[in-house]
C-alpha cells in the first residue's frame, strides 16, 4: 500500500498544467547516469494486515518481560508500571504529529507541556533551568561535559567508573571529536575514590551509581568547587522520591535517563535525556528551552527562547548540534510524573527501595552469593555469584526470570539486580528459589 492520494487522472492533469507529460520528466535534473535502473531492490508494498503479520513474527521471536519472564534487570532501563493515562494523553495525535513548535501561536499545547516538564525536572533535580530534553542519558552526559569544559576552559574530565559503562563509552566516542581528556576514576567498595588534586574542568559522578550505590555527592561537590571544576551529576529521577537533590548537594549540571517515567523498555529507545543546570549556565544550555511570555493581548503564552544558542542560528559556534530531541517522551514523562504526584513519587521510590532490600536479603541468604559492594543502595544492587553472571542470566531465563544484568570484568563480573514497585514478594521469593537452584 502507499499513502499518496493522487489518482492517475489527477497526476496527468497536474503534469499537463506544467507542460509535462510524465512523472519522469520531473527528475530531468538528475543526470541519466545516476538514475536507478529497475527501481529499488525492495519487495513490493504490503497491505496493512500483512505488515501486522510480519510484526507479529518479530514480536513472537522475542521474549518480552512479563509473567513468563519476570524482570529483575535495570542498569538504566527499568520495568515500572506505566499508568494508562500516559498512553491516552501523551500519545494524542496532536502531540504525536506536530513538529518542533516553530509557530508558537498554534503550538501552545506542546510548549506549555514542555514548560511544565522543565519545571518538574528542576524540582526533581534542585536546579534552576532544564531543557526540553536530549536523546538519552548518555547524550545528556556528553552535553553536560561539553558545557562544563566550555564554562571552565579546561578539557580534563574526571569520570567516575560508577557512571554507566555505556555512557562512559559514548563520552569516549565523542571525546575524539571534542578533544576532552577523560580520566577514569575507580570505585572502592562501590563508591568513587576521587583523586585529591588536579585541574579538571568537570567531575562526573552518578548516584545511585552503576552498582546501585549512593555516592557522596556533597563531597564531590566540595571537591569540584575546591578544584575549580563543575560538578556533573547523573541521577535516576526515581531516586528524587527519597534522596536529596543533586542541586542541593552542589551539582552544577544534573543529567539523567528519563525512561523510568513514561517510557516502555523497548530495547532501549526512545528514552529521554534529562538535562538541568544552574541558571548561570543557561546560555550554554544545549537544545531547546521554553519560556513563559505574553501575546499581543497580554495573555500568558509560551515560546522557545534564547534561540541564539541553537545550531540553526549560531551554526558552527553553537553550544550543541541538537535539533530533533525527544519531546514526546518528555510529554509522557510529564504525564506519568504528574499522575504520581508529590506523594506518589515518594511512594514509588520507597516501594523500589523496599523490594530491593527484601530481594537483596533473600539473595544474600543463598550459599555462595556475596555482596559486590558494601555501600548503601536504593533500588538496585550487585552480587557475586558462584556461577558466572551471564550463565546465571541464561539459566534463569529458562526458569522464567530476567535475572539482572551481567556486569563486565571491570565490575568483577557481578550480577546487577534491580527491583521495581512491580515486583511482588511472591515473585522475589520465587526468584531467590530459582537462583538458589541455578547457582548450585
Amino acid at each position: 500500500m502507499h499513502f499518496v492520494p493522487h489518482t492517475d487522472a489527477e497526476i496527468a492533469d497536474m503534469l499537463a498544467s506544467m507542460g509535462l507529460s510524465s512523472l519522469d520528466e520531473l527528475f530531468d535534473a538528475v543526470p541519466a547516469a545516476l538514475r536507478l535502473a529497475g527501481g529499488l531492490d525492495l519487495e513490493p508494498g504490503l497491505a496493512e494486515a500483512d505488515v501486522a503479520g510480519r510484526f507479529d513474527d518479530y514480536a513472537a521471536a522475542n521474549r518480552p518481560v512479563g509473567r513468563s519472564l519476570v524482570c529483575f534487570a535495570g542498569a538504566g532501563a527499568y520495568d515500572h508500571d506505566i499508568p494508562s493515562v500516559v498512553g491516552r494523553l501523551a500519545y494524542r495525535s496532536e502531540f504525536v504529529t506536530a513538529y518542533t513548535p516553530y509557530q508558537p501561536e498554534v503550538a501552545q499545547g506542546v510548549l506549555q507541556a514542555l514548560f511544565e516538564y522543565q519545571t518538574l525536572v528542576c524540582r526533581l533535580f534542585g536546579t534552576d533551568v532544564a531543557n526540553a530534553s536530549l536523546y538519552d542519558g548518555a547524550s545528556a552526559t556528553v552535553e553536560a561535559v561539553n558545557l562544563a569544559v566550555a564554562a571552565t576552559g579546561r578539557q580534563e574530565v574526571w569520570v567516575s567508573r560508577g557512571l554507566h559503562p555505556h555512557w562512559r563509552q559514548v563520552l569516549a566516542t565523542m571525546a575524539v571529536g571534542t578533544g576532552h581528556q577523560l580520566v577514569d576514576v575507580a570505585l572502592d567498595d562501590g563508591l568513587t575514590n576521587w583523586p585529591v588534586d588536579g585541574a579538571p574542568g568537570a567531575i562526573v559522578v552518578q548516584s545511585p551509581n552503576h552498582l546501585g550505590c549512593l555516592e557522596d555527592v556533597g563531597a564531590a561537590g566540595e571537591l569540584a568547587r575546591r578544584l575549580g571544576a563543575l560538578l556533573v551529576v547523573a541521577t535516576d529521577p526515581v531516586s528524587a522520591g527519597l534522596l536529596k537533590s543533586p542541586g542541593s548537594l552542589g551539582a552544577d549540571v544534573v543529567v539523567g535517563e528519563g525512561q523510568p517515567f513514561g517510557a516502555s523498555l523497548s530495547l532501549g529507545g526512545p528514552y529521554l535525556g534529562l538535562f538541568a543546570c544552574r541558571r548561570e549556565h543557561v546560555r550554554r544550555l544545549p537544545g531547546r528551552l521554553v519560556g513563559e511570555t505574553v501575546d499581543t493581548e497580554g495573555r500568558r503564552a509560551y515560546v522557545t527562547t534564547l534561540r541564539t544558542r541553537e545550531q540553526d542560528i549560531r551554526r558552527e559556534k553553537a553550544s550543541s548540534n541538537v535539533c530533533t530531541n525527544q519531546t514526546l517522551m518528555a510529554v509522557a514523562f510529564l504525564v506519568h510524573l504528574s499522575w504520581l504526584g508529590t506523594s506518589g513519587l515518594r511512594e514509588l521510590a520507597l516501594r523500589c527501595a523496599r523490594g530491593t532490600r527484601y530481594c537483596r536479603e533473600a539473595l544474600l541468604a543463598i550459599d555462595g552469593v556475596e555482596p559486590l559492594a558494601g555501600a548503601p543502595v536504593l533500588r538496585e544492587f550487585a552480587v557475586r555469584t558462584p556461577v558466572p553472571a551471564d550463565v546465571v542470566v541464561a539459566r534463569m531465563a529458562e526458569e522464567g526470570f530476567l535475572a539482572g544484568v551481567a556486569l563486565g570484568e571491570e565490575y568483577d563480573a557481578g550480577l546487577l539486580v534491580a527491583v521495581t514497585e512491580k515486583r511482588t514478594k511472591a515473585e522475589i521469593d520465587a526468584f531467590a528459589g530459582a537462583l538458589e537452584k541455578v547457582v548450585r
Partner: protein
Amino acid sequence: MTAAGPGGKATSAPLMGRDPEPTLFELSSPGRVASNFRTTGVPEWAAEELVPAAHLREAPAPIAEISERDLVAHMTRLSHRQFSVDLGAYPLGSCTMKYNPKLCDDAVARAGLADVHPAAPASLTQGWMALLTDLESALCRITGMAAATLQPPAGAAGELTGLLLMRAFHGAAGEDRRRRRVLIPDSAHGTNPASVTLGGYEVTQVPSDDRGCVDLDALAARLDDDVAGIMLTNPNTLGLFEEDIVAIAGAVHGVGGLLYYDGANLNAILGVTRPGDMGFDIVHMNLHKTFAVPHGGGGPGAGPVAVTERLSSYLPGPRPEAAGDGTYAWVEPERSIGRIHSWHGNALALARAWSYILANGGDGLRRVSDAAVLNANWLRHQLRGTYDIPYDRPCMHEFVASATNLKRAGGLRALDVAKRMLEEGFHAPTTYFPLIVEEALMIEPTETESPQTLAALAQALREIAGDTAEEGHAAPRTSPVGRVDEARAARRLVPTWDARSDA
C-alpha cells in the same frame, strides 16, 4: 476552600475561547492524589530504615497534587491548543510533515517489542535483532550503501557519527591531524556546521552559484589535502538537485576527502537515484522525515548512518548481525568508533520506519518521491508571479519562495505570511531559511497532500499576498493566543513555573 486553580473548567475553552489553560501547578491542591500501587506483599519498611539519613531528603520533591480527572482534562485541553499533521496541511520545508500512517502506530504497539529489556541477552531478543537487520539492509538498498548503524537517535547525531567515522577513516591512514577542514555549502542546515565543530573540524563555507548550487570554482579553490570531506544534501535546501554532483564527488575524492550526505531531503529521490551512486561515502537518514516516523512535537526521531564498504568496519557497535544459521548476534565492528547511544538507538522509532517501508515497498517509495516532487512543482507554478521565486526552475520535493516583492510593495514580510497562514487553517512554511534567500518561505507540501489541498494552499497563499501590512501584522487573530512576544521571553527569562516570581 483551599487555594487552587479552577480544576475542571475548560478554561482553555477548547471549542470556543481564547482563555489560557492553567498550568499543572495551578490545578494542584494539597493532598490530592491520583496515583496508586499494586499489591506486592513486600515488607513495608520505613524510609529511614532503608536509606541512610545523610542521603534522605527532608521534604518530598514537590511535583503536583492533581486528580487523574484533572490531569486528563488538562492534557486534552493542551492538545486542543496544538496544530498537527492530523489536523491539516503542514508545508514546513525541510521538515517533511507528511501523513504518519496509523498502521505504524499499531505495528509497534506490541508487548513483544515494547517490553524487551535492552540488556537482555541476545537469545531473548532475536525478533528485535531480525527487525533491525532487515531495516539496515533496506536502508542500504535505498541509499546504495554497504552497511549502516541504527544507533543515532536523530539527524544531528547521525551527522556527528558520520564526522567521527570520517575522522577514524583518515586516522587509520595517519591523516587525522592534517585533515582538519570540512566543507559546507552556505545553504546548509545549522546542524551541519555545529556537528563539524563537535567532530573537531573547522568549517569551510562554500558559496552557492546563481543557480543555487555548489559553485564548482569556489569549491575547487577550497579543496586541498587538509580537507577531510564535504557535507551536502542533494537535493539541497533550496530544493534543487545538485546536477554537478559527480564532478563534486570526483573533486573531493581527488584530494582524498570523503562525501557526507545529509539525508534530510532523501524523500525527493527514493528509487530515482541513490547517494551511493552519486559518490557519497557516508549518508544519514532522518527516519522521522523520509520514513514517516512522526515528529512528536520535536522528537523522538532516528538518524541511522549508512556507509560504503571501506567505512563499514568503523561503524559504532554493537551491531546486530545475522549469524547465517537463522540467528542473530551482537557484533562489534573491528575498528569501531564506539558507542553513540546508551543502548541500540530509538528502537521503536526504527521499527515504525520499518513498518512504513514494508507497507510502501520499493514501488510505493518511488511513488512517494514522484508525488512529493509533483506537488512541489505544481505549487511553485501556482505561486509564480505572486511571490518571488529566486531560483525558479524545476525543483525537487520543496522550493523556496520569497516575500521580498511583498515587503517592498507593501511591507508584508515572510513572518506575516506565515502568521496569516495559521489563520487560514494551515501550518506556515519554514521561514528565513535557507539563509541565502531573503524573506525566505521554504515550502514542502509532501506527497500525502492531495491536489485539492494543494489548490487550497495555493489559494490561501495568493490571497495573503494581497493583504496589507496591517492585516499581516495583526495575524494570527483566531489562534489560541495571538502573536507571541519572543523578545520578552528572552529578556525576562521564565524557564519554569517556579521562576515566575523573579520574572
